[in-house]
């Protein structure tokens, strides 16, 4: 995919190619949450855009929790990890997460509809999940149960859709 950075869509797509700037200990909740977001969203976005760089983590297959080499990218469940982050992450960490998610959402929406028609359902499911995670980060204290349930539903929907997409790809 060639990107024209002189227009808004090109800029938004390029801005989502790099994963989040992780911080903290590798077994800490913050690191794990950013790692999970990278696996589920960034790595898949790269695949959709045609990235093949050997050092980049890319998610090509149907398994939401593994990268291209079959290496586990998310130890444990995405929803549990993100919920723990919403509970334990600092305000600054949650703002950094929101920043990353907003870039990913706008980038997915900026992909040309015709060119990416085979991924249309999956892109919608990814955007829905981003919305659900963002909403949970915003309203975790006030509305924890509903926010978590909404995110789990969005994640289950994505898991269903991605199988459909990859069937089409093959």
């Amino acid at each position, binding site marked *: *995919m*060639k*990107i*024209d*950075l*002189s*227009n*808004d869509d090109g*800029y*938004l*797509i*390029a*801005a*989502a*190619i*790099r*994963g*989040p*700037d*992780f*911080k*903290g200990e590798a077994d800490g909740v913050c*690191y794990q949450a950013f790692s999970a977001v990278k696996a589920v969203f960034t790595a898949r976005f*790269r695949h959709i*855009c*045609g*990235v*093949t*760089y*050997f050092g*980049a983590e890319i998610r090509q297959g149907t398994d939401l929790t593994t990268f291209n080499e079959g290496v586990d990218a998310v130890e444990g469940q995405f929803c549990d990890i993100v919920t723990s982050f919403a509970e334990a992450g600092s305000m*600054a*960490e949650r*703002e*950094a997460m929101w*920043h*990353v998610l907003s*870039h990913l959402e706008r980038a997915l929406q900026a992909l040309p509809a015709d060119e990416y028609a085979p991924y249309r359902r999956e892109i919608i499911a990814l955007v829905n999940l981003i919305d659900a995670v963002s909403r949970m980060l915003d309203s975790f204290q006030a509305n924890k149960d509903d926010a978590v349930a909404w995110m789990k539903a969005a994640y289950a929907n994505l898991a269903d859709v991605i199988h459909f997409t990859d069937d089409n790809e093959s």
Partner: protein
Amino acid sequence: MIEIDVTTNDGYLLASVIRGPDIEGSNCEYLVCADIKMLFTARIRHWCGVERSGADIRKTAGLWTTFNLEALVEYVMSTEYNQGLNHYLSHVYQALQIITKYGEYHREAILLLEVAGKMCDAMHNAYNAEQSLRWSIDMLVQFASAKETTC
């Protein structure tokens, strides 16, 4: 202007640096990270043709009037190993290595590459890192003022 095709290695590495650092933290940290973004990201965006309103873009080699060298050096020298900043700088470093291939931007890209390298050295407590970082920024400032003089 540099064109980006993310299916190539160079394209991927350049696209990876179009987003700035994921800035966070207190007011002081925020301002320093904003300077780091203006130093590297904003300049690379300009070289790659970004024109989006709202995106920080640096169109000249010169540093801006509010650039605070002391705050930058103090932050880099005093901060404990910062994985987030290190990740961002590693992408900056790789992107600048590619940009040095472009004759038009070659010299300035090398100077920025030097600054990024010295910042990484400082975060890893390398010998004489503070002095090296100051020198590398001095070189960049001299280059910018020489460029303005000759224009």
